[in-house]
């Protein structure tokens, strides 16, 4: 049954080509996980005694994998201690990245095959076996390859391979080295299953799988309570999102009895508007959980407790963008419900704004980048929310490049800082910008490449960020004038007013982005060095294995924009390549949103929009350069705590504390006091169960008390008995 189905899909143009090997894409990282995992366990597992109870008290079980470096820094990733490399480090550092590069190579060849086929209308679906089939539910384990999933596969395997390369250097002396690569490979496997899944349940496997891997990787150094807590928080918040995803699936199944994308796109039209909106809103709840949007974004900043490559791969490039991919994949549904799309756009915009404001006042370099990621994700959701799916995906791709670069850059900075502090045994925070400053003299490569990324993210022309962010803003502006979204009203606010407001917020956030990115660059690389006299000599550029991926990413974030050059700038190269590439997948729904005809802006308005964006970007950078005086900064130890509005921002608008007091504490306290103690112990157990036992016991004691032992009592009992019996006769 397995193989005939694969062969049957003969009709598709891609069926003969290398695309038929697409199941190998996820299988390679899975193999990597199994191998690395085996190596990790083989190194640390020592078989216990046959009779553990007798053996319990007097043997010494010393596991190798001490899980954490010697110096007990609470929440910073101090990568290494005495440079003892893990026994299998060499083998693992070959398997890990090799598996990824192989997958990337396969992806490229499949991409090549896809481009050779001229117009690919139908997605290439391979069914392997029936996963679940009961009643009229039938879910197959099937993969679907189309233009959208191809782009995602390329990003995942490409950026993933680079990050694996980077991790070889970054995690070199960590005792959990094979375990790290095992989890990283497992993550890539689940991410590929997510993007290649042909139906929502198969996608859900990937969806929760990546949640699991982010849990394992955030809490990688689990001997610190903070890291373990961050991991748990991430998983549970993701799980809340998954709850939404599940409900959406149930709604879909209840109303159109099919869960695979092909089936849904055919039958989506006959769904009632209310149902479609409900489905889309629940789907978006899932996205909010996974891609850290309001209100479920709180886990991403804490996720920085994981090693930096993890932050780069999972919490910047791939996993967090799964939400955007989900909305793009369900474009058919979102196009049918303008209200839901508007909600996505509004939440995206608000998240972007909120995260940007918090980003202004963060001192930990990774937290700045984390909030910047949340903010950029907000942008992508604005893009896919308003129906500009291509723009959203485009920003996703470019963001993957420059955000990965920024994170890896900050990784090499932290690596250098930690090496310096380690040399002088100081316990200063290797991630706090106040301890850095003037690093451009010591880390020239990282300095230059991070400036490229900063310019890209700020939206300076010709860099990738400019093209993708501008496309989103232009998309919003265009749809404000003429689209189904504009006509509908969202909680009383008419659509077009809302869209213009979103455009305004988008611009202002772009300004904030430019400011806090420049602020980060200034405090880290410019001005006097604050690391400390003795440590300064130890600051040096990271080894080439870490800097090479930076260079590649630098190039990509510079020329990333080339992917989808706007009409206006035809002179730069083939215009709208990504737009035409994604047209078969998201073209129809995009048109549906803009009322049948593709929206187009007059040249004047386009120039005006581009002009505004450029002005904003440049103004932001100049404002930061003018206002911020890196020279006046002092190392973290002597830093004075902020006051007023700055403190509110530094404490993340106290959102974590709000959640804790309003949800977590009442839930835990309530269930301990109210549910367990009161209902379980007193009410059911105490009152009913033991109560009835004590009652019968009490009556028993009364009975035995009346058994006085003297004959006359007994005689009286008999006489009373006689009277009762005779009495019973008379009154019948």
């Amino acid at each position, binding site marked *: 049954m397995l193989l005939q189905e694969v062969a049957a899909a003969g009709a598709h143009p891609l069926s003969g080509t290398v695309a038929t090997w697409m199941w190998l894409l996820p299988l390679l990282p899975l193999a990597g996980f199994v191998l690395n995992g085996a190596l990790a366990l083989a190194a640390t597992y020592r078989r216990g005694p046959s009779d553990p109870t007798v053996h319990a008290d007097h043997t010494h079980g010393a596991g190798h994998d001490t899980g954490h470096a010697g110096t007990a820094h609470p929440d910073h990733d101090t990568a290494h201690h005495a440079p003892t490399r893990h026994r299998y480090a060499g083998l693992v550092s070959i398997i890990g990245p090799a598996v990824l590069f192989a997958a990337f190579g396969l992806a490229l060849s499949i991409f090549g095959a896809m481009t050779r086929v001229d117009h690919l209308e139908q997605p290439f679906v391979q069914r392997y076996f029936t996963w679940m089939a009961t009643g009229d539910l039938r879910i197959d384990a099937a993969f679907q390859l189309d233009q959208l999933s191809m782009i995602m596969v390329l990003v995942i395997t490409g950026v993933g391979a680079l990050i694996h390369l980077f991790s070889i250097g970054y995690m070199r002396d960590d005792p959990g080295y094979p375990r790290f690569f095992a989890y990283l490979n497992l993550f890539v496997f689940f991410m590929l299953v997510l993007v290649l899944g042909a139906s929502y349940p198969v996608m859900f496997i990937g969806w929760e799988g990546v949640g699991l891997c982010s849990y394992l990787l955030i809490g990688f150094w689990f001997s610190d309570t903070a890291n373990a807590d961050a991991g748990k928080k991430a998983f549970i918040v993701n799980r809340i999102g998954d709850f939404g995803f599940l409900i959406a699936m149930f709604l879909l199944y209840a109303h159109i009895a099919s869960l695979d994308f092909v089936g849904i796109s055919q039958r989506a039209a006959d769904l009632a508007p209310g149902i479609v909106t409900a489905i889309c809103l629940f789907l978006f709840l899932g996205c909010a959980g996974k891609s850290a949007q309001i209100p479920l974004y709180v886990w991403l900043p804490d996720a920085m407790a994981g090693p930096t490559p993890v932050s780069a791969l999972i919490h910047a490039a791939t996993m967090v963008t799964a939400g955007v991919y989900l909305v793009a994949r369900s474009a058919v549904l979102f196009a049918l419900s303008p209200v839901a799309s508007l909600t996505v756009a509004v939440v995206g915009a608000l998240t972007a704004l909120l995260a940007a404001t918090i980003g202004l006042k963060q001192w930990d370099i990774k937290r700045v980048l984390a909030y910047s990621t949340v903010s950029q994700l907000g942008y992508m959701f604005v893009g896919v929310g308003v129906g500009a799916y291509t723009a959203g995906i485009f920003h996703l791709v470019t963001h993957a490049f420059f955000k990965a670069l920024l994170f890896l850059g900050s990784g090499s900075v932290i690596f250098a800082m930690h090496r310096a502090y380690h040399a002088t045994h100081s316990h200063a925070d290797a991630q706090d910008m106040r301890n850095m400053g003037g690093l451009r003299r010591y880390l020239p490569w990282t300095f230059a490449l991070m400036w490229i990324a900063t310019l890209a993210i700020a939206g300076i022309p010709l860099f990738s960020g400019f093209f993708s962010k501008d496309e989103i803003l232009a998309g919003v502006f265009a749809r404000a004038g003429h689209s189904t979204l504009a006509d509908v009203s969202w909680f009383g606010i008419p659509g077009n007013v809302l869209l213009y407001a979103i455009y305004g917020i988008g611009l202002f956030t772009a300004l904030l982005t430019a400011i806090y990115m420049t602020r980060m660059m200034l405090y880290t690389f410019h001005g006097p060095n604050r690391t400390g006299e003795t440590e300064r000599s130890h600051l040096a550029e990271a080894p080439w294995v870490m800097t090479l991926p930076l260079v590649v990413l630098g190039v990509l974030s510079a020329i990333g924009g080339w992917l989808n050059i706007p009409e206006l700038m035809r002179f730069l190269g083939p215009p709208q390549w990504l737009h035409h590439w994604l047209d078969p997948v998201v073209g129809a729904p995009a048109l549906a949103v803009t009322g049948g005809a593709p929206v187009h802006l007059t040249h004047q308005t386009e120039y005006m929009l581009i002009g505004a964006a450029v002005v904003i970007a440049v103004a932001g950078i100049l404002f930061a350069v003018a206002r911020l005086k890196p020279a006046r900064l002092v190392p973290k130890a002597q830093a004075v705590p902020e006051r007023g509005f700055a403190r509110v921002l530094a404490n993340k608008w106290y959102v974590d504390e709000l959640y804790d007091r309003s949800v977590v504490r009442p839930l835990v306290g309530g269930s301990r006091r109210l549910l367990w103690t009161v209902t379980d112990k007193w009410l059911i157990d105490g009152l009913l169960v033991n109560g009835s*036992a004590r009652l*019968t016991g009490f009556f028993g004691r009364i009975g035995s008390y009346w058994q006085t*032992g003297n*004959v006359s009592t007994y005689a009286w009992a008999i006489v009373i008995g006689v009277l009762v019996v*005779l009495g019973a*006769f008379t009154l019948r």
Partner: protein
Amino acid sequence: MRFDLARPLDLAIALAPDLLLMAGTMILLLASAWGAESPQRQRAVGRWSIILCVLTVGAVIYMWWAGHTATRGVIAVDPFRWATDVLILLGAILALALSMDYLEREGIDVAEAHVLILFATAGMMLLAAARDLMIVFLGIELMSIAVYVLAGLNRRSGRAAEAALKYFLLGAFSTGFLLYGIALVFGATGSTNIADIGAAVLARGLATNPMLLAGVGLLIVGLSFKVAAAPFHMWTPDVYEGAPTPMTAFMAAAVKAAAFAVFLRIWMEAFPYLNGAWHKPLWYLAVFTMVVGNVVALAQKNIKRMLAYSSIAHAGYLLVAVVVSNFEGASAYLFYIFAYTLATMGAFAVVIALSQVGEGGHQIDDYAGLWRVRPGLSIAMAVFMLALLGFPIFGGAGFFAKWYVLQAALRPPSQTNLAIWVVLTSVVSAGYYLYVVMVMFMKPRPAEAPAPGRVPGMTRFVIATCAIILLAVGVWPRPVLRVARQSLPQLVHLSEDLPRAPAPQR
């Protein structure tokens, strides 16, 4: 063949097994009184008594097999009687076996104990055969007087004497009521023969005659005392605790069997047509007995008192069979008594095996951790406890016994609420039955607790046979069930000649 009870020869043949037993008992009485008291004599008399009982059982089974019937007369000749006789003799044999060992261990070289047991058994067989209130009175008195003495057998212990006194005084007192009941019934119907009474009640429509109802009421009181039903039960715990344990076992098993046989026979033959007038009091009596028996048993710390209350509770369950008072009730009674006798006898046998000389060691907590020292005994005790609780398979026939009573109760006219009472009180009974099992199996054996002595031969035999039969019937109840279903009291069919009761002269 059909006995015409008017002719003395036929009557004698009809009473053959009873006469055989009584004759044998007389001989044994002389034998035991002849020589000096000694343990060997006591054991010899004991052995002979058992042989006599076995012979009687043989005679009963022969009469049963022959399928004799009889005309209306003083005694009944029907399978119900033979079945009850077998049960009573089973109880007697087990009691004799237990008492042989017990008397030897306690140093009471009273051979007459066995003779008294035989006398009591004779009385009970008479009761089982009784079809005339006069014979009922005779049987009860013969049985009771023998058992009064048995209760006080151990001259050295004050408690035994007290038990005997209480049993005697209250026994005589209740016999007074029973007798007065018989007199009133005689007064109302003009005859003491159960069948005639029944016919008279029907013929002359005496259902609402106050004198008859008062008589029936007093009859219920008299029999309830013997059966230890609730308001009249207060003597049971004291007498059971005071009396020597084998005698207690005999009282709990055989006495109850005989008393209920009479209860059933009277109510099925004499008073079926009182359109349920007696139904209500018996119903309340049954429920009150079950509740008092089970609930007070929870508070008991002495194993013999606990088993006493447990026997009261079982009297309650049997009363349910009486309340139902149809053929199902009779067969349910037979099966129930069979299982109950085995379980109670077995339980008391274990109590004997575990108690020290001089009636010591009867506190349930003395059995703590017994399983670790005496696994065989504790498993047997667990089986008996679960049988009394009515647990399937592990409790063996006990389950089917209670099941049969429940089934009889639920038959139309169904007494569903009575069935619910049986079930709820059974749950309460789990409280004390399982306490014994828990103490034995789950509590640690205290270091200083004395290891119980070797279990004498006969007691070990009694425990083993009771447990094995119980478990066997529990898995394969068909043979006993078939016997119970077929041996029904042969009721006088109204087609027979009507009584010649003389019209009352003014």
